[in-house]
């Protein structure tokens, strides 16, 4: 009986692993961008839904930005008064925490899917 070993398999493995870092940057950036945008959209919806006449345009102040290849942020930008900011103006403003409640777990989910596909590419 003879055992035949084919080394080309490890060469494939090596080249596959070399593809992982650039793939992570490419796919990760996409996921970060999508989730930042979704978070901003949610926060805007909450702000719009809760604002009274004085805060009607406040939701437009909630903007988003990519701060790096794999990082982004969303939140209020430059002034304006959100509903519930002052103690006389109703129960406090939770537009951002509420959107983070949804986006935090969703983002964790999305990014772990990316990590999965890095080692088992679909193509």
């Amino acid at each position, binding site marked *: 009986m003879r055992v035949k070993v084919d080394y080309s398999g490890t060469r494939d493995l090596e080249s596959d692993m070399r593809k992982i870092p650039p793939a992570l940057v490419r796919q990760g950036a996409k996921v970060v961008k999508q989730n930042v945008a979704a978070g901003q959209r949610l926060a805007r919806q909450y702000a719009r839904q809760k604002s009274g006449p004085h805060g009607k345009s406040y939701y437009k102040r909630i903007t988003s930005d990519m701060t790096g290849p794999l990082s982004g942020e969303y939140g209020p930008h430059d002034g304006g008064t959100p509903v519930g900011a002052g*103690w006389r103006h109703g129960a406090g403003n*939770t537009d951002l925490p509420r959107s983070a409640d949804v986006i935090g777990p969703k983002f964790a989910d999305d990014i772990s899917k990316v990590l999965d596909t890095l080692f088992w590419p679909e193509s």
Partner: protein
Amino acid sequence: MAATVQPALDASAHWSAIKALLADTVGDDVYDYGKVPGADGNPGTLPTAFVMLSVDRRFIPSGWLSGRTSATGWRVFCHHVGNTAPNARTVGNWVTAALNEARITVDGIASTPITHETTDPVAVDDGMFSGQSTWTYAL
């Protein structure tokens, strides 16, 4: 007819439990929004230092495709208000001392330790000084 609420889902029970925690450090000056004496047309004189409290259920993700969760998440929102900036900060410290890492029990179910989420600094606010903080827990 009183609405039937499942155990530990009654927001009023949560509000009262948090108020009881705050009573240790803040005392009786813990109010619902719109219920502060001397404000919003309420009778009485405005206290020099007080807390406005709201407790709401928050979204927590489900491990099930059906969306079923075996736990409920809650967010505590506090405005700490004082007639001077140091007063407002002192009330903020009282809130922190009462809530930080504390647990409550609602309908016999013990909560996770209350975790700090955000704080806004004390600033001048409509004739008073106020800051705000949010806290979360689950049970």
